[in-house]
């Protein structure tokens, strides 16, 4: 089945315990994208991922993965999806060799030869028990199992969390090698922003169970700027960009954080009698923080 979108969530609400973890979440992951799913702790990233792989059922809305409705056709989607959960889920009693055999038995696309090559590259001992592996080795084994099944979609929930930089690089390299070879879609959640900056071409930002931004990585990186402005009136007319934050800066200048900035927009400042002194690029982490700050302020205003 050919699909334009590998993952599509429409109006998804998930009730977890007594509170709503996800509220009317809409999310679209294009086929072939490496989609970074950002959000602070407790924002609902893991709940979203558990809903994607059928571990949680949406109370409302539809979840489609690789064209399949996950509520009715989860096994078909899972057959083509490699999943690495936040916490190790493998059977600790099994050895690495047994884990490979067990996992491979579920997937007709399992590539035993490649799995063995990856195992060698990762330095995993076939006879080692999974329960005795270090955190880094367990992370490598989970990634190995997910990609050796040759999935069309990889769903990775903080796969490098707690790993040392060397292991982190090994794990991400293996994922990127696989993607470059197969053009598979990757949906990866992380709070390590700079890690995602390096590998992702799409980014979604989740805050309190709602998506506050979903855009190509280059737009995200280039579209959010800090402007230093002086002489602007308190009440602003409609601007050609989105004003995310407005605060006092150094001296008489104000600092504005804006989204959707383009250089020709500086004429707008002349029109309102203000002076644009400087345009500063924000790195991904600063952009992320500003987005969250704006979303939280908007929510507070909504509550008030």
């Amino acid at each position, binding site marked *: 089945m050919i699909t334009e979108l590998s993952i599509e969530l429409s109006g998804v609400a998930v009730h977890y315990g007594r509170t709503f973890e996800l509220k009317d979440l809409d999310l679209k992951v294009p086929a072939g994208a490496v989609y970074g799913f950002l959000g602070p702790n407790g924002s609902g990233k893991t709940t979203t991922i558990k809903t994607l*792989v059928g*571990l949680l059922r949406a109370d409302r809305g539809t979840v489609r993965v690789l064209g399949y409705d996950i509520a009715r056709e989860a096994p*078909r989607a899972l057959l083509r999806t490699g999943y690495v*959960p936040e916490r190790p*889920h493998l059977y600790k*009693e*099994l050895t690495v060799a047994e884990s490979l*055999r067990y996992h491979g*038995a*579920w997937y007709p696309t399992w590539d035993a030869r490649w799995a063995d090559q990856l195992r060698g590259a990762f330095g995993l001992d076939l006879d080692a028990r999974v329960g005795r592996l270090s955190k880094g080795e367990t992370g490598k084994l989970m990634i190995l199992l997910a990609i050796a099944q040759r999935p069309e979609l990889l769903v990775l929930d903080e796969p490098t969390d707690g790993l040392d930089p060397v292991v982190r690089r090994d794990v991400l390299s293996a994922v990127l090698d696989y993607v470059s070879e197969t053009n598979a879609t990757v949906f990866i959640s992380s709070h390590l922003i700079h890690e995602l900056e390096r590998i992702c071409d799409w980014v979604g930002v989740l805050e309190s169970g709602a998506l506050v931004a979903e855009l190509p990585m280059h737009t995200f990186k280039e579209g959010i700027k800090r402007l230093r402005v002086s002489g602007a009136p308190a009440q602003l007319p409609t601007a050609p960009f989105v004003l995310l934050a407005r605060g006092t800066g150094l001296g008489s200048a104000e600092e504005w954080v804006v989204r959707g900035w383009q250089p020709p927009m500086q004429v707008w400042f002349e029109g309102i009698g203000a002076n644009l002194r400087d345009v500063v690029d924000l790195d991904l982490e600063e952009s992320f923080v500003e987005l969250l700050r704006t979303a939280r302020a908007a929510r507070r205003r909504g509550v008030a």
Partner: protein
Amino acid sequence: MFRAVMMTHWKWSRWGVYLLVAALFSTPVVLLGVLGTRDLTLIPVWEVLGPTSGAGAAYLVFSLFTGLWLAASAWNVDTAQDAVYALTRPVPRWYFVLMRLGSGVALSLVPILAVLAGALFAALVTTRPPEMRVFPVALTAKFAVATWLAYGFCFGGFTGFRPRTAARNVRPLVVILSGVLIDAATGSHVTTVIGNWLTGPWSPIGVFFGRWNLFDV
């Protein structure tokens, strides 16, 4: 897939299965040791039947333990890990549960064969009086049915460690307990009638209450 499921089940249950095999094979050997002779014509029949009934009770306990052990080992690893690995296998959930159920039934054949081997050994090495018969196959069949019943009950129960399914599984027990209490309070004898039926030959769990003698008259 089924082989893979069975491999994991075997890995988790094998030490218990080894112990059960040893215990089940040695039960008739211990029985002969208690009787003190292989020539059962030398002692009165009632002196044979007493220890044989004791061994029968041991078989009953072992069948319950076999069912309990195989059911517990089918689920406890998944339960400990919130069943994330099990629930993300690319098969319908009923099919996964069926494979797990089937793997336990397949593994139960190992202790069942140990019962048959021990009972056949005892049948071959003993000399019996004309009125005494030996039932190695019947005993094994009884052990197998009891084991599968115990396994089925426990397997269903152990799927209920998650709050929602646990509540569903506890509901029939609450109904039964309420019935017993109402029966006791009103002085009717419904419980006695049901109890007699449950322990009778036509009950689905009647296998647990009959005679389990390897040697009988």
